[in-house]
């Protein structure tokens, strides 16, 4: 029986799709049969982040209308055969599907997969309710910014109201230097405010954009990047393994800090 997990955030642009792509790929690398469902109908992006956009023939909507079987719509990743994607339709809107239909799609996959990750659209309207409907667990993605944390708090309330009890927090785009300079909330700050268990912390890094440009999730890199490693660790925690959180402060050395050290010596650190 599959674990069905929705990746959600409320606010757009905080990294839901990036998280879905990387966690999905990581779980598949751990040996789990993993299915990713893009629930963002009309604004699908998960196919792009996975580099599978040219292989989309059928979408969830054709499965529902009976134009194709679910197996025909699923795209199997050639780099990692444990991973499949069920793409969303791009030329329709979020009202073209309802919660029961989403539930039906999940029920078609449930018996054959270990993990089903649902990439939720931004907002808290129809698309959100469709995406969280079949889920038993949720990962709430936020950045350490005021608007993202406020929206995350609202979403946590809605998830609880809809009977999803297992909710974990992923803090994305953390900038350790800014935290140190007291200009960004720390992970502990965000965790204290939202009061749900932490599953991952991903540092801000240019390589995230590079990986989306190429359509290759970070966790596929042979020489793993810091955010890639952080995603792998998150997947391991999801799998129930005990993995310590990375000391991101230690990894980050800004050019400004080096310059300051040069002039003032290290005693001021």
């Amino acid at each position, binding site marked *: 029986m599959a674990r069905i997990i929705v990746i959600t955030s409320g606010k757009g642009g905080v990294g839901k799709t990036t998280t879905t792509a990387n966690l999905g790929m990581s779980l598949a690398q751990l040996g789990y049969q993993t299915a990713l469902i893009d629930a963002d109908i009309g604004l699908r992006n998960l196919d792009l982040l996975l580099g599978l956009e040219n292989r989309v023939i059928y979408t969830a909507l054709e499965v529902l209308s009976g134009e194709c079987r679910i197996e025909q719509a699923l795209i199997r990743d050639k780099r990692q055969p444990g991973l499949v994607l069920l793409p969303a339709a791009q030329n329709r809107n979020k009202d073209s599907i309802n919660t029961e239909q989403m539930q039906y799609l999940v029920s078609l996959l449930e018996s054959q997969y270990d993990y089903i990750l649902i990439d939720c659209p931004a907002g808290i309207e129809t698309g959100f309710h469709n995406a969280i409907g079949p889920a038993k667990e949720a990962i709430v993605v936020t950045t350490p910014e005021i608007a993202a944390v406020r929206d995350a708090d609202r979403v946590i309330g809605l998830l609880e109201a809809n009977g999803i009890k297992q909710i974990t927090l992923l803090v994305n785009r953390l900038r350790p230097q800014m935290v140190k300079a*007291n200009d960004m909330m720390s992970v502990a700050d965000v965790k204290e*405010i939202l009061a749900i268990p932490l599953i991952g912390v991903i540092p801000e890094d240019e390589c995230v954009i590079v990986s989306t440009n190429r359509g290759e999730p970070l966790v596929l890199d042979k020489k793993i990047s810091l955010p890639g490693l952080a995603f792998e660790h998150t997947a391991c925690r999801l799998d129930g393994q005990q993995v310590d959180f990375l000391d991101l402060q230690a990894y980050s050395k800004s050019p400004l800090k080096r310059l300051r050290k040069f002039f003032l010596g290290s005693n001021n650190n």
Partner: protein
Amino acid sequence: MITEFFERLFVNNTGSRDDVKRRLKLVLAHDRSTLNASTLEKMRKEILVVVSKYVELDTESLEFSIKTDSRMTALIANLPIRRILQNEEL
């Protein structure tokens, strides 16, 4: 003096982290306190059941509302008592 100049250039003591935490906590306290009509009605009924175990209320003039100003949210209940139930009635 040169050291002072660089200190001023590189050391930022202002820190907006406390500001964001303070603003966020305030706004969330407000967000979290919003109750929808059905929840309020449910709560009203439950409170009345409990209170009615001990006193007889004037059901005509009950008041029950949520008031929010910029700093806090309060549940305002005005439950006029007609009669206090005696021990043997409890």
